[in-house]
């Protein structure tokens, strides 16, 4: 009876834990291991090369360019999305008439998948017949090449990804703002705090937890963002949108180089961990 009792929690846990271990944990481990091997296609054998794949990456200008694009993309899109989501959350927290409708509208992109957003905006941004260029022409401005140009493609993707993403991140921050008791603001008001002081001394500290979550989640999501580049530009023009995740995908599925692909993913994973740890430290210190 007693021994049977001991098994109960494990029986409840087993299906989930087996799934997580097999399909989440094991693949990471396997990826780490694969990054230490090369595949030989003709002989169908694997050869242990130690850090060989990483050393090859270090000598590879395509990798460095891709790393640069990934960092550039993230340095712009992460602060942009966080700032926009915060601003939007504050705006949607205003108690004005009809606010429920505006909230529902900003919630709509949650129902739009990244590929749908890409298809929509690809047509909006089409250089010859796109709506955006028609609007620019109507305003007396020059039409732009957008995704077709190596100097604008990355920026275009940043805009598209933000159009799709900001509403989702706003949900977390809006929920955080709504949990701040009104009485704190009223007390601050009585003490003569200005709007800006209230924001600095009340809003920011009170929203630190969801804000930290959003900062970290936005960063992870964008460091690994893949589909807009895959769908819209294939990494081009001139590799200007060739982020590491896409380079890794292409190594695996276009060039069948699993070793290189896995090594790139490991580099991305380490980069993500480092950046996220740093963010946690900085946001905790402020807490």
């Amino acid at each position, binding site marked *: 009876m007693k021994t049977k009792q001991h098994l109960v929690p494990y029986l409840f846990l087993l299906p989930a834990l087996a799934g*997580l271990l097999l399909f989440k944990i094991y693949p990471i481990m396997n990826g780490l291991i694969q990054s230490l091997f090369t595949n030989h296609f003709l002989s169908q054998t694997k050869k242990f090369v130690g850090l060989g794949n990483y050393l090859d990456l270090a000598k590879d200008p395509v990798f460095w360019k891709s790393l640069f694009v990934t960092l550039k993309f993230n340095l712009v899109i992460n602060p942009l999305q966080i700032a926009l989501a915060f601003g939007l959350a504050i705006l949607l927290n205003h108690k004005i008439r009809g606010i429920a409708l505006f909230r529902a509208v900003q919630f709509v992109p*949650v129902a739009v998948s990244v590929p749908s957003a890409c298809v929509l905006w690809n047509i909006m941004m089409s250089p010859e017949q796109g709506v955006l260029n028609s609007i620019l022409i109507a305003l007396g401005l020059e039409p732009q090449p957008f995704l077709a140009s190596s100097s604008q493609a990355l920026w275009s993707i940043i805009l598209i990804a933000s159009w799709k993403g900001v509403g989702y991140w706003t949900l977390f921050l809006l929920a955080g703002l709504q949990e701040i008791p009104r009485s704190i603001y009223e007390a601050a008001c009585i003490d003569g705090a200005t709007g800006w002081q209230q924001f600095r001394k009340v809003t920011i500290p009170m929203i630190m937890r969801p804000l930290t979550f959003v900062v970290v989640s936005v960063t992870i999501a964008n460091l690994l963002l893949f589909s807009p580049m895959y769908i819209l530009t294939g990494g081009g023009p001139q590799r200007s949108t060739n982020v590491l995740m896409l380079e890794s995908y292409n190594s695996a599925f276009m060039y069948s180089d699993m070793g290189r692909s896995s090594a790139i993913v490991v580099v991305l994973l380490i980069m993500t961990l480092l950046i996220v740890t740093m963010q946690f430290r900085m946001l905790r210190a402020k807490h």
Partner: protein
Amino acid sequence: MTRKWTTSAYSYAFQIILALIVLLPIAFALVSSFRPLDDIFKYLSPVTWKTFWPGNVTFEAYENLFALRGFGRTFFNTFFVSAVCVIFGLLVGSMAAFAFSTFEFAGKKTAFAIVILTFMLPFEIIAIPLYSFVNRLGWIDSYSGLIIPNIANGLVIFLFYQFFQDMPKALFESARIDGAAWFRVYSQITMPLSKPVTVSAALLIFIQQWESFLWPLIAVRSKEYKLIQVALSDFVTDIMTYWNEMFAAVVLSIIVPVILLLPLQRYYVEGIANTGSKE
């Protein structure tokens, strides 16, 4: 008083501009999907109110999608995979959460750490090695390959765990004294009391699956098991010419989450807020 009035006027102006930025591309897609192919280009330049308002309504694009491009199969696949993921994901996730919140057992901390780790872990990191593994299992190009790896979900376990933590433990104890087996406590007391979190988790899983792209892209080779997001991306990468069909496909991909989210928005937001605000 006037100052207050101007602030809210600014606020409205801002809200309306932002709402237009969100809605115009979608409105444009919706309208264009009901147009004959030639008409789409006709109203593109210059942009007038006609760009966003249909003239000759036709269902040609939708008919072509289903009759010529096998979109029915794709649509069904996506629905089927998402629904099965929801059913098994809820079952497996809530059972694990029940174990975490009800029992003390050896290895609990490690098991919980795995849950948290996988919940923070982005899918992209594991996609390529997962492909090698699923390939060895022979599940590429099958429903198994699309569904089974996605059933166990750290986020869902976490959501249920938080909900169960707030339930009064006395409920379970009295049932146990009456001699109910643990599985009955789980299925007849805990779960019936957990409807809100179940709806939240179901929505999160469904939308995540419906919108997933990378895994259906690499786990499927044939048209037979194609999912909607990959079919959408094919329009851009392969057949850029049929804009009306492309828009119809986008509308179909958006309409399903919208239909679910409109009445159940509150549950989705609650689920989301719970993952973000607690640790």
